[in-house]
């Protein structure tokens, strides 16, 4: 009996405490809040957690310098369990809480659902609009068929990455047989289709020898796929996999002793370097907007100390999403230009067409479809890199820098503006 009483007391005080906390949050409208909608549990929790650390760090850096319009930036973490429908509910919750900005990146299927939900809300709920800042969902549809005035993409879309990648591959004579292995959803399907077209058009010396889809987050043993890669005689693998789906694939390829190059979108982070380790050296390539040794190569001292400061705070991981830096500072610039953090239409207008001086060069938010255009880097895992990724002893070395002109694809977006 005594025990029950204690629990009752505890629950009661917990409830009142949480009510007190939430009433403070309501009363104090000062911080500019951004909902961070990502998987914080389940198989991709590590990916969601890493992004959250990035956003919190960038927000703290902005707040140290006086915030935006004198207001602090606050990241509100929300767990969408990698599900589109949960994400839509979380957008609703953000709107109910009076939050004007949501950010998300993992899974273009989630991104697509979020664009629809944001559009619907902004049509019906004109006093409480939300802006969707997408830092990683790369399905081109989001800035083509599905493009929205309230959606901005800070990562290079998948078609842009493939454009840059094939611009590099066409000069590589040792790339002759390409095997595509991707996750079975819109992101993977796009890579498979577009890569096949690009190889036909642009790489006369190469052919596609295999094209496989596997379920997302379900495969434990990749060795059967590796046996198919081996049987196809491929010398190059192209994969848009991320998280554990990439780690397991690379480890299976290494453990089978195949001597092939793997070109990936996400080989440099999201737990993959830690899970792969030195086994990926000279094997694992990534195409990205930045990697740690770019700071060293190009003498970006300020950004290097930003990187080191992040490392001090999170020794177990590394600053990886350069685009989160771009996103946060571009949002800051837009809000300051408008002078009002609640006027979503005006902020979207200010972001549109914005040219921003990022450490890696000028990047442009294309007004036509809200796609960021930026230089890209192709890099390979290397133990001589100055900065290793996730304490693995291996980092990345640039093998090619792709200028903005070679990392641009036209858009079919026909945007409806308010």
């Amino acid at each position, binding site marked *: 009996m005594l025990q029950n009483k204690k629990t009752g007391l505890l629950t009661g005080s917990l409830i009142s405490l949480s009510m007190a906390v939430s009433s403070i949050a309501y009363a104090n409208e000062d911080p500019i809040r951004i909902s961070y909608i990502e998987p914080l549990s389940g198989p991709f929790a590590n990916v969601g*957690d890493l992004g959250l650390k990035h956003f919190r760090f960038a927000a703290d850096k902005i707040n140290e310098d006086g915030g935006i319009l004198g207001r602090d930036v606050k990241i509100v973490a929300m767990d969408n369990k990698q599900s589109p429908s949960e994400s839509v509910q979380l957008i609703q919750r953000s709107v109910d809480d009076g939050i004007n900005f949501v950010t998300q990146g993992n899974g273009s299927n989630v991104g697509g659902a979020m664009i629809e939900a944001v559009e619907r809300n902004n049509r019906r709920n004109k006093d409480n609009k939300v802006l969707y800042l997408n830092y990683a969902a790369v399905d081109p549809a989001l800035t083509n068929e599905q493009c929205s005035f309230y959606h901005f993409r800070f990562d290079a879309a998948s078609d842009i990455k493939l454009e840059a990648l094939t611009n590099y591959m066409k000069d590589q004579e040792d790339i002759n047989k390409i095997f595509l292995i991707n996750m079975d959803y819109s992101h993977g399907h796009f890579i498979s289709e577009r890569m096949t077209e690009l190889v036909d058009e642009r790489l006369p010396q190469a052919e596609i020898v295999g094209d496989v889809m596997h379920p997302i987050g379900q495969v434990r043993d990749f060795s059967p796929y590796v046996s*198919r890669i081996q049987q196809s005689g491929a010398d190059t693998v192209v994969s848009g996999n991320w998280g554990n789906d990439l780690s397991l694939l690379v480890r299976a390829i290494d453990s089978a*002793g195949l001597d092939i190059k793997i070109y990936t979108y996400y080989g440099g982070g999201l737990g993959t370097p830690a899970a792969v380790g030195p086994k990926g050296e000279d094997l694992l390539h990534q195409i990205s907007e930045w990697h740690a040794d770019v700071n060293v190569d190009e003498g970006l001292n300020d950004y290097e100390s930003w990187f080191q400061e992040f490392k001090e705070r999170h020794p177990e991981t590394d600053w990886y999403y350069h685009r989160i830096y771009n996103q946060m500072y571009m949002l800051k610039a837009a809000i300051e230009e408008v002078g009002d953090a609640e006027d979503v239409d005006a902020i979207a207008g200010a972001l549109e067409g914005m040219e921003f001086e990022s450490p890696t060069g000028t990047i442009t938010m294309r007004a036509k479809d809200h796609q960021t255009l930026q230089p890209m880097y192709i890099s390979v895992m290397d133990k001589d890199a100055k900065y290793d990724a996730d304490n693995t002893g291996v980092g990345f070395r640039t093998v090619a820098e792709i200028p903005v002109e070679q990392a641009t694809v036209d858009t079919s977006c026909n945007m409806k503006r308010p």
Partner: protein
Amino acid sequence: MLETIAYSIFNGVLYGTLLFMMSSGLTLIFGMMGVLNFAHASFYMLGAYFAYTLGLTTGFWLALILAPIAVGAMGALVERYGLRRVHQYGHVPELLFTFGLAYVIEELVALFWGTVPVPYKAPAVMNTTAFTMFDLDYSWFKVFILLVAVVMFVGLWLLLMKTRAGQVIQAALSRPDMVGALGHNVPLVFTLVFAFGCALAGLGGVVGGIQFVTDPGMAFMMGPIVFVVVVLGGLGSVPGALVASLIIGILQTFFLSINFSLAETIGTLNIEDSGFFGVLWHMEATRIAPVLPFLLLVLTLIFRPRGIFGKREA
């Protein structure tokens, strides 16, 4: 084709033995205690993390022994101070208890070790190539997995069938009052069985953590498939778990290895890749493979609810 079949059987057996390591403890606990332990995969995860952490100081080989013991000890604590209290209220509260426990363990692991995978690797000597088959290398570690599984199966079987302790355990489960009257401590037997089952899962984790990725999501990833193995093999049957693991491993590997769809084999027959039938006609084997274990689960429950070797219905 011969190559594909040989390869599927070999790789399937490898994958199957890993599945067996994870499911043998679960089926043992269920068979003996009637407790469907939802947190079983969490103990598997703990095994991997303990082995990683211990291995940093003691080296891999000692950790291989210590980690399962530590997991077993945790299992004993869980049984003694959690499950035993819940037990008196029946099976549903037990189920809910282990269900909640799985989440608690996942969150604790994330708190202690972080959400980023830990660099848990096999010792260098086991990464060397043992042999090469069809131009694919197989490391000593894979041979080691096979060995561990064989030792585990034989050991379990001997323990349950040939030793006095095994007889007491079996008797305590079907006639607890009688065994108690004979002077044996029945609750202690239950605690030991649960601890032993957890230790087996822990051993599976020590090996599985290296083969796959050691991160807080690993329990979640393995949980469902382990239940499929146990149901297919027959609840409570250790040989059943072995056979079911091998069946699932080989079938799945085979479907992933072949390039097959009805359309490619028989011809498209002008059937378009749309609509229910069209999609089925063009469906590639690789895309069916992940569904296979769960399809087997459903079919087993419909046509043979007690599984391959099970004595009672699931």
